[in-house]
């Protein structure tokens, strides 16, 4: 037994999975069952008390989902993970462990429009107050810190314009404030960026995007970096105080550096209920096996298409961090040297009408509200994903009326360029 270290692609195929003990099945079986039989009353009590390893009920854990969890934890370099029904569910479950009503969290202004809505409206109704900061101005995060701040939330590669966030600089602010840094790593995937290596304490994903990668299954995941000390000052009672739900155990004391993932499972998922279907977990696991191959192709295609658009007379500007003259190119070289992702925006000289016309003429690009599919996708954020924001907020989040967002797939890039050319040309 040597401690030789396998690479990312080996982990993408193997981590968390082993042949099924009962049947020898090599692919991870879909354990499509709600519940698991106990050995006896003592075994049942031990499982319910979090004292023994084993399965109870699929809302709390499932063997197919567990393989997915360990695999993503391994790819991100975390101590443990919890899979849930969607990326949005991951965000609710994470913040439920950290915030009490009346508390605050600081969030980067450049986020997926759905997250902006969730934070602004749904979370406000729970008494969790979002305070916005500008990821291009690190000092704005420092200024936003108050005694009620419990977390900082950013995206590694930010939707919709593919801008790159300076994770290390913001992690320094978080450490100084004594709060965890949560990084949504959906658009990068761990193949491009591993936020934990740059100071993140918690990583969340919409598995629906590049990790699953085929546009067929929703899912979300929470990865615990194992880096944050939850015990200080009673600031995070879900982790540091005796839990009445579990005979007074303290999660940090009992589970050490994966206590946050356990809290998300036994206090979040168990009680809020957004469990991931084992079938979806299986589909996403299959997708992850080819993540390194797909992600590189996504990035290589995206760079070629961004370069084509930057040289096209109908295009006013392209926002892609992989372009040498882009505002975020330095950060892209530092954080994502293999590629700057495959989601970016551009604006048309013809404004809103030209955007609508482009979308209607494209033949290969699909007009829909998702990213990170094998297929190339196009959307006009101002009228869709970011439509609930007011005009000023749209522009601040990079989704002005003239902006078109692309998610580049893994087709042949020549065909994608030809499609854009015909749609822009006429």
């Amino acid at each position: 037994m040597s401690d030789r270290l396998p690479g990312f692609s080996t982990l993408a195929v193997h981590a968390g999975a082993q042949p099924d003990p009962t049947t020898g099945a090599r692919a991870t079986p879909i354990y499509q069952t709600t519940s698991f039989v106990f050995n006896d009353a003592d075994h049942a009590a031990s499982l319910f008390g979090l004292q023994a390893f084993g399965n109870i009920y699929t809302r709390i854990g499932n063997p197919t989902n567990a393989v997915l969890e360990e695999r993503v934890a391994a790819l991100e370099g975390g101590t443990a993970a919890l899979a849930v029904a969607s990326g949005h569910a991951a965000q609710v479950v994470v913040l439920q462990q950290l915030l009490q009503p009346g508390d605050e969290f600081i969030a980067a202004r450049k986020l997926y429009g759905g997250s902006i809505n969730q934070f602004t409206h749904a979370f406000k109704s729970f008494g969790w107050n979002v305070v916005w900061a500008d990821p291009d101005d690190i000092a704005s995060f420092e200024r936003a810190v108050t005694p009620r701040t419990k977390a900082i939330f950013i995206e590694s590669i930010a939707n919709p314009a593919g801008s790159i966030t300076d994770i290390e600089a913001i992690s320094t602010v978080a450490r100084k404030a004594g709060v965890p840094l949560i990084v949504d790593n959906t658009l990068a995937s761990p193949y491009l960026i591993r936020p934990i290596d740059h100071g993140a304490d918690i990583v969340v994903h919409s598995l629906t995007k590049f990790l699953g990668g085929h546009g067929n299954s929703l899912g979300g995941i929470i990865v615990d970096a194992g880096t944050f000390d939850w015990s200080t000052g009673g600031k995070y009672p879900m982790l540091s105080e005796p839990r009445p739900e579990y005979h007074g155990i303290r999660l940090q004391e009992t589970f050490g550096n994966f206590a946050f993932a356990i809290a998300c499972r036994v206090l979040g998922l168990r009680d809020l209920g957004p469990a991931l279907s084992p079938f979806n977990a299986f589909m996403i696991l299959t997708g992850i096996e080819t993540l390194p191959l797909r992600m590189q192709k996504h990035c290589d295609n995206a760079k070629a298409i961004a370069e084509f658009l930057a040289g096209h007379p109908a295009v006013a500007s392209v926002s892609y961090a992989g372009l040498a003259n882009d505002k975020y190119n330095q950060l892209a070289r530092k954080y994502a040297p293999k590629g700057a992702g495959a989601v970016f925006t551009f604006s048309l000289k013809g404004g809103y009408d030209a955007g609508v016309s482009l979308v209607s003429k494209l033949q290969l690009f699909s007009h829909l509200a998702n990213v990170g599919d094998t297929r190339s996708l196009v959307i006009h954020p101002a009228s869709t994903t970011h439509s609930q924001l007011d005009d000023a907020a749209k522009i601040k989040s990079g989704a002005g009326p003239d902006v078109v967002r692309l998610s580049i797939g893994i087709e042949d890039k020549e065909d994608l360029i030809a499609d854009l050319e015909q749609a822009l040309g006429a």
Partner: protein
Amino acid sequence: MNHDAYPDNYIRGILNSVKSIAMVGASPVNVRPSYFAFKYLAQRGYDMIPVNPGHVGKELLGKPFVASLRDIGRPIDMIDIFRNSSHIMPVVEEALALDPLPKVIWMQLGARDDAAAEKAEAAGIKVVMNRCPKIEYGRLSSEISWMGVNSRTLSSKRPPAPTQGMRLSLNRMSVGGGDTAASDRAAKNKSEQG
């Protein structure tokens, strides 16, 4: 030994070789971590001895409590200390007075006393600090994977279905890409600050 980050082979070697474990601070209260760590290690085949002067005369899962390490009266391979950091040194001193010496002194999750570790190591005893043997056994066997924990191991071998009382193989390949270097760094920073 670098006590900020243990190689898997070090932990694996300890858990594969020790047979008897005296647990100092074992609790008969079935919701305390020491109780269920004791129970798990007993189920996995270790010869467990509960040490707690407050419970002499009682039993823990059929094993009689003893008041101190001296009272065990036979050689023991490992001492697992379920006390917080400020109570470690006297236990290590007591262990160093045993004949024969134990092979391993293990301090539980959250417990760390570098001076005590140095003393024990000077006497040739292997030391583990701020870890739980139940978690490490579960991790190296991958039994812990059911709760989404990164076992940091890989295997293409078909495992046996675990049953009560079965010893599990800990000899899976350890991995690096999924390592917890970040949390080890954080633990180190914390211990330096403290």
